[in-house]
């Protein structure tokens, strides 16, 4: 990968866009509270950031996108945008698990091993998701996350639904997310990146009672 790359993460209620260098250095970032309306501002924020840093679209050498887990509304927007940027500019794309980037950022800030920590994220109004060792597990509302003694909890987007200590670590993780995303993304882009077609969100919570049916999509070609 040559030159600079653009990183996007829209998995949380705070969205971010950032510019990174091929060696994994964070050049600049923009963060804003997006709630559940990531789609309205994402391209405008990207455009503003590129203009402010005098980097043109044509100079971008890759796209890095956070793949969650997180709010599916935001992830759809982020991934659809990232895919169109990669295809439109004909440059590589790399997906980075937002959970991995958040844990990396938290461990850097708190000076602990990332393996000692788990990430706690919201899944709808009452459920939560706990991510450890790259695997996500759903905790229903009212249930407790059964964790081993000594586990460090990093809670993001859970005001009032996690311990203060965990929320404080979560805030630090969010503050360091852009740098971690750029660091991990640069590595992944250098290794060739991902297949732009196959990249989908890490983990999607389905409505209660629904499991994913394995099935094929049917193609039709109508060239008349």
């Amino acid at each position: 990968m040559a030159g600079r790359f653009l990183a996007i993460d829209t998995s949380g209620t705070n969205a971010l866009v950032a510019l990174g260098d091929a060696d994994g250095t964070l050049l600049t970032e923009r963060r804003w509270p997006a709630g559940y309306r990531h789609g309205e501002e994402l391209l405008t924020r990207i455009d503003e950031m590129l203009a402010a840093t005098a980097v043109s679209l044509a100079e971008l050498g890759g796209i890095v996108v956070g793949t969650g887990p997180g709010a599916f509304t935001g992830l759809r927007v982020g991934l659809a945008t990232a895919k169109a940027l990669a295809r439109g500019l004909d440059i590589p794309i790399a997906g980075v698990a937002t959970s991995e980037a958040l844990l990396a950022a938290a461990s850097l800030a708190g000076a602990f091993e990332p393996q000692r920590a788990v990430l706690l994220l919201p899944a709808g109004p009452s459920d939560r998701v706990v991510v450890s060792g790259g695997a996500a597990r759903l905790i229903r509302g009212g249930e407790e996350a059964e964790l081993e003694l000594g586990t460090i909890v990093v809670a993001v987007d859970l005001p009032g639904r996690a311990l203060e200590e965990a929320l404080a670590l979560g805030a630090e993780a969010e503050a360091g997310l852009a740098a971690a995303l750029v660091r991990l993304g640069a590595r992944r882009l250098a290794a060739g990146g991902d297949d732009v077609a196959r990249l989908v969100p890490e983990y999607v919570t389905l409505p209660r009672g629904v499991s994913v049916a394995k099935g094929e999509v049917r193609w039709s070609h109508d060239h008349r």
Partner: protein
Amino acid sequence: MTPRSLILAVESSCDETAIAVVEDGSRILANVVASQVAMHAASGGIVPEVAARAHLRWIVPVFDEAWAAAGATWDDISAVAVTEGPGLAGSLLVGINFAKTLAYVHGKPLVPINHLEGHLYAAWLADETREVAEPIFPLVALIVSGGHTFLVEMRDHLQYRLLGETVDDAAGEAFDKVGRLLGLPYPGGPAIMAAAAEATRHDVVFPRAWLGDTFDFSFSGLKTAARRTIATETDGHGTAIGESALTADRVAELADGFQESVVDVLVTKALRAARQIGAKSVVLGGGVAANRVLRDRLAAGARGAGIPLVVPRPALCTDNGAMIGAAGARRWAAGSRAGLDLDARPSLPLARR
């Protein structure tokens, strides 16, 4: 005529990921659709989360194939058109953000399109097999699909007056629900049509909801009547998919009776509306327009009234990108533009009364 145009069109409002390239609002250079029907068949309906994820998975391959088939360059493209609503919010978002970003990267205007307008404009896509090249104004259009059932009057391009719509279920939805009750596979439309074609007796009569002189539709009473009949005939056990307690012959007769009721109301109201406004043509569109009995019955009625019926080929009646490209060409010429902040409008209406 509209100015010459080449529109890249993106449609993802429900469970079809579709991208097309359309020339001058009528000639299809490419029209690729990835349908999730097979995926949703197992769950008996659309799961929005699964649909949106599938859109993300298939949008790039669909784009690549459409782009290669069209053989166009970005210099040739006049605008990118995309469905902004109505539809499933999560599904719409995938197409909207993909289209918006392509338009941004290539410096092209972005044209937002109402999905229902797309169904209407499918009638303007070139088809040399039809008796008229394109619809003639004023016209009455009947759009029937899994999500929508309405009658609209058009006196000119992009001008709509709503004559009537469903007050409860869409016709396609009723097909799905009754299909399930009869133990037929999802989606119900094609399954009921196929089952009904096997009927040797045609004496099952279900009620028709005429709703007085209005052009509105109602299918919930019909659905309830079908459920009662099926429950009675199966000793109240009902049926599960694939294991109907009814014989195949009986399923065929009930499917036939149900289909007759739906088609009768749709055709009668469409023809009455055409007479009332002095229509010079009738347009039929939407996924249920693929139903052969509905097409034939409406065609016969229109012929009797001396006006042509314009029905797109079945592949252009179900959701596709070409119809968005056809509407997109008109909207682009009329100056419709969206900004980079375009968001999904899940309950966008087409027209007022």
